[in-house]
């Protein structure tokens, strides 16, 4: 137990981001933290709590299926993201060469790594789950003696999905003798991520049979195939729901037992298979191309301008590093899952149909909502992919390269921002175009949405880059570690959302108080975004470069 605790402490400390200890940076981070809490955590928690409260009230009889719905959804996504984290922490972490020679059983190493992953990855999940529980409590109440168990249950709900990831990883990676090269195994992690994304899409598609207008009746009748499938996949969630619905301590005991079963199976497999998998991976592996390949390549070298070479370097690092590729590029593909989920749940609803018709007949309010939707999706996608907000962080310990090469900082900053702009814009515009096609938007309106989203992508990219210069996470031993626990990414999202909310409120005030035609408002939006971009780029270049010089 002592060794396990020591390992947990070591892994946790080595993955943490160093925070500024004094001065302006500390104040800046404190402000950013408050913004993040107010504009990400609190809204998310309130929304989830209210959803849980509303559905529970509608279901009546203390039925916890509304809360369970949220729990299932979170479990589904924690598997999609958890798999990548677990795979990296268990098999690709920089500490592995130092751990392997120590006389520690694989079971203890894996348990410590699992605990560290649980502690670092589950904070937001637990906050949301607690909000769902609070919503349920206010709607129907929980017997006093069950409250501590309900709380323990909420804190441990993320364990089973992570244990699933652990079991799958240990099983798959026990065949590393066949894979051999680490580089191949890393590519395998991308395939697994995509597979899980498709699986999540399938489970979400099961929601098609839920008519949101008659959601409560569907749940009461127990006809939802989504619930049926998810209760089997996540029995811990099911027993937790039963504990709330029946106010039963016995269900809680079952919950504990099933959780213990998951952990037991996982640790047993780890004890048998973990070292086999890790040792089987060996080195990164080389390329067996013949010598002539190198000879021909040297002969065929191409000359690029310095900024083109730097641009290519940035793209190669992003696309070739599996952790960066998954978290910065492939993650953009997650949005279709969410969009699809909303679509399958809402497409037949009266409000959706009303909105569609209203937009088609030129209702100003509906058009206004679409503009806000475009602005909101652009903010979320650009900030969430963390390309800009990890620009300096990705350099890691080699950040000195940025400073000793004879390439102006301005040029390097513009290139880093452009990488984020290009990749984010591609994905944002895909969604904008799909939205325009779905709503049969006119050509001028479509052009407006495209221009507005592009301008916003530019703003968020320079904002993210600037934020990452304040206190980049430069000390990391594997690439996923650079992104995990990186507050700059979180702050970029919070800051972007705050600005988007202020922007939307200003526009709403203009619209409601002046009753000006929408086309004038559209021009105002573009002008405001142009001014904001000019200001943000100037701040990024002036203060961001100063921050870099002081690193």
């Amino acid at each position, binding site marked *: 137990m002592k060794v396990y605790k020591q390992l947990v402490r070591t892994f946790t400390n080595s993955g943490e981001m160093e925070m500024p*200890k*004094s001065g302006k940076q500390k104040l800046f981070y404190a402000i950013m933290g408050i913004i993040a809490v107010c504009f990400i955590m609190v809204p998310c928690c309130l929304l989830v709590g209210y959803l849980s409260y509303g559905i529970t009230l509608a279901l009546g009889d203390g039925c916890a299926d509304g809360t369970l719905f949220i729990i299932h959804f979170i479990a589904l996504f924690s598997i999609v993201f958890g798999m990548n984290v677990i795979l990296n922490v268990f098999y690709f972490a920089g500490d592995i060469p130092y751990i392997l020679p120590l006389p520690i059983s694989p079971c203890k190493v894996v348990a410590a790594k699992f605990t560290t992953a649980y502690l670092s990855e589950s904070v937001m999940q637990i906050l949301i789950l607690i909000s769902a529980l609070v919503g349920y409590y206010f709607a129907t109440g929980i017997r006093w003696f069950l409250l501590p168990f309900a709380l323990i249950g909420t804190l441990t709900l993320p364990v089973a999905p992570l244990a699933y990831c652990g079991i799958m990883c240990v099983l798959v990676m026990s065949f590393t003798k066949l894979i051999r090269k*680490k*580089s191949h195994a890393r590519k395998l992690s991308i395939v697994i991520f995509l597979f899980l994304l498709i699986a999540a899409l399938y489970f979400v598609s099961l929601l098609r049979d839920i008519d949101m207008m008659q959601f409560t009746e569907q749940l009461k009748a127990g006809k939802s195939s989504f619930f049926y499938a998810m209760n089997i996949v996540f029995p811990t969630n099911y027993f937790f729901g039963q504990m709330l619905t029946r106010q039963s301590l016995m269900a809680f005991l079952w919950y504990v037992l099933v959780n213990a079963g998951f952990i037991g199976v996982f640790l047993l497999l780890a004890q048998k298979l973990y070292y086999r998998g890790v040792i089987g991976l060996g*080195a*990164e*592996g*080389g*390329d067996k*191309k013949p*010598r002539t*390949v*190198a*000879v021909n*390549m*040297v*002969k065929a*070298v*191409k*000359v*690029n*301008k*310095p900024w*083109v*070479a*730097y641009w*290519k*370097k940035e793209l*190669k*690092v992003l696309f*070739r*590093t599996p952790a960066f590729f998954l978290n910065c590029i492939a993650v953009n593909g997650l949005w279709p899952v969410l969009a699809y989920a909303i679509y399958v749940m809402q497409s037949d609803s009266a409000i959706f149909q009303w909105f569609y018709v209203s937009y088609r007949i030129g209702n100003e309010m509906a058009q206004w909502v679409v503009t806000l939707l475009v602005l909101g999706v652009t903010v979320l996608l650009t900030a969430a992919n963390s390309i800009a907000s990890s620009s300096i962080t990705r350099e890691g*310990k*080699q950040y*000195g*390269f940025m*400073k*000793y*090469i*004879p*390439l*102006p900082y301005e040029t390097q900053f513009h290139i880093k921002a452009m990488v984020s702009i290009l990749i984010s814009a591609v994905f944002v515009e895909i969604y904008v175009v799909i939205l325009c096609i779905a709503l049969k938007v006119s050509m001028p309106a479509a052009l407006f949405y495209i221009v507005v989203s592009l301008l916003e992508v530019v703003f968020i990219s320079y904002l993210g880059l600037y934020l990452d210069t304040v206190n980049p996470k430069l000390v990391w031993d594997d690439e996923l570690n650079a992104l995990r626990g990186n507050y700059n990414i979180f702050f970029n999202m919070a800051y972007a959302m705050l600005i988007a909310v202020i922007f939307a409120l200003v526009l709403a005030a203009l619209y409601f108080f002046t009753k000006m035609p929408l086309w004038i408002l559209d021009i105002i939006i573009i002008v405001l975004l142009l001014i904001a971009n000019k200001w943000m780029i100037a701040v990024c270049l002036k203060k961001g470069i100063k921050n870099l*010089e*002081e690193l």
Partner: protein
Amino acid sequence: MISFQHVSKTFDGKVKAVDDVSFTVNPGEIVGFIGPNGSGKTTSMKMMTGILNPDEGSIQIGKYDIVKEPLKAKQEIGYISDNPDQFLRLTGLEYLNLMADIYGIAKEERGGRIERFAKEFGVYDVLHRQMAGYSHGMRQKMMVLGALVHEPEVWILDEPMTGLDPESAFVLKQMMREHADKGYSVLFSTHVLEVAEKLCDRVVIIRYGKKLFEGTLEELVSRYHNQSLEEIFLEMMNHEGI
């Protein structure tokens, strides 16, 4: 030429990593930068290359002040950092090309240079592989090649021999000598006193950020009554300056 005059650097307002250090690396000279771990060697080298800004003092690289004309000064420098684990997702050739592009090397010169250097260091056959698959020593060789591909006048090498096999270390030492003989400057940090003894025209010894000695090894040995270099070094590290 490197002129490092009255340079100081303090971290977090508390730790004085470099304290009023002055020395010069003249054209045609190889100067060894010697000191124990944490003595301020890497901090000094980072200030010379523009990675860190000095709090006080001036640093001249050739004709240019690194603070006032950083881009021109950087163009003159070939720098090997103490960490060879860089750009591991690039192939060796991509890395060398990146460096050659950034320093603006023409195509006619770069192909030949890459081929010659890569063959001399025994990495020609692996240039097409990603550096993630290289051993530590091979990565170090690539860092050496990347720093020298633009044939800079001033070489600033932070522990360049670490991880190199004897053959490559020999090649690098030979290249350093040839470079100095052409009238250019080489400053390199090392812990290996034998290397300094055989290679350096002069040495600069620092401890706790303060310069303890600057001069030829003969001068150093004569001051310490003909003790061995190792004994002198240990004595210097255990006592205040000389």
